[in-house]
């Protein structure tokens, strides 16, 4: 397996959905290719960091306004039936 082919299978490898036979080839390649090893490690850490990011806090005022708007709309759409 070449670095190029490795790159194409990167998602499947990182997500654990790779075909087991290809997985062996993938790991053999990595064992002999330090840059590819580091790239895979970097990618894993990148995903971990984004997953760990806190969601943006919804402003309380907006929460109240949103529910107010929805109640109005609900009344409108439900009385006409």
């Amino acid at each position, binding site marked *: 397996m*070449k*670095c*190029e082919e490795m*790159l*194409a299978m*990167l*998602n499947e490898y*990182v997500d654990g959905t790779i075909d087991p036979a290809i997985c062996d080839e993938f790991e053999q390649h990595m064992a002999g*290719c*330090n*840059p590819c090893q*580091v*790239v895979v*490690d*970097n*990618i894993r*850490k*990148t*995903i*971990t*960091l*984004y*997953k*760990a*990011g*806190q*969601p*943006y*806090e*919804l*402003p309380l005022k*907006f*929460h109240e306004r*949103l*529910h107010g*708007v*929805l*109640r109005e*709309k*609900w009344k409108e*759409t*439900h009385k006409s039936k």
Partner: protein
Amino acid sequence: MTLKPSDAELVARAKLGDLAAFEALTSRYEQRVYSLAMRMLRQEQDAEDVTQQTFLSALENLNGFRGEASFSTWLLRIAAHAALKVIRKRKGLDTVSLEEATESQDENGAIPHPEYIADWRQSPEELVQRNETRRLLDGALAQLDEKHRLVFLLRDVEGLSVKETAEALGLSEANVKVRLLRARLQLREQLTRTLGNPERRLIPTHNHPH
């Protein structure tokens, strides 16, 4: 102990005219929708507009929701399209259809090779604690083309499967995979330029087949 009602139960009650059930669904997902919009648009007013539009649209179209996808996927789909619309408007392209924004195009080129390859100086656990990390992450995200950013956010931040992401954006699964790979590689590149240890930088071994 009372179990929280499932989304499907709340949807069914809302369809029968139960406003409280619809508000419960809204409370359950408003944070996620708002966060997605903030990460796409980086502007509070626009994110609020998109969030409001999303739930208004969900309210109006609830009877059309047949439960083929999960309620959350359906909702994120509405939000994603609303956010894309804002981006296109900003670019002055509001006459271009949404389909074109999500259509597969220019995804056939070669996958860009990693250039800056180095071990990171800190672990993700250490980085999460740092205030500047959020700015770095959001900055890197902002550099992505919106088509790639949206796929990455739905798949890797919101945790949808490839199939669900494809459903939400009206794309093929193959197309989602290509966009996800590009997004991940580009983010890796950006982050590693800041977080990588220059003393441990490796030279890429490009094994070009030709």
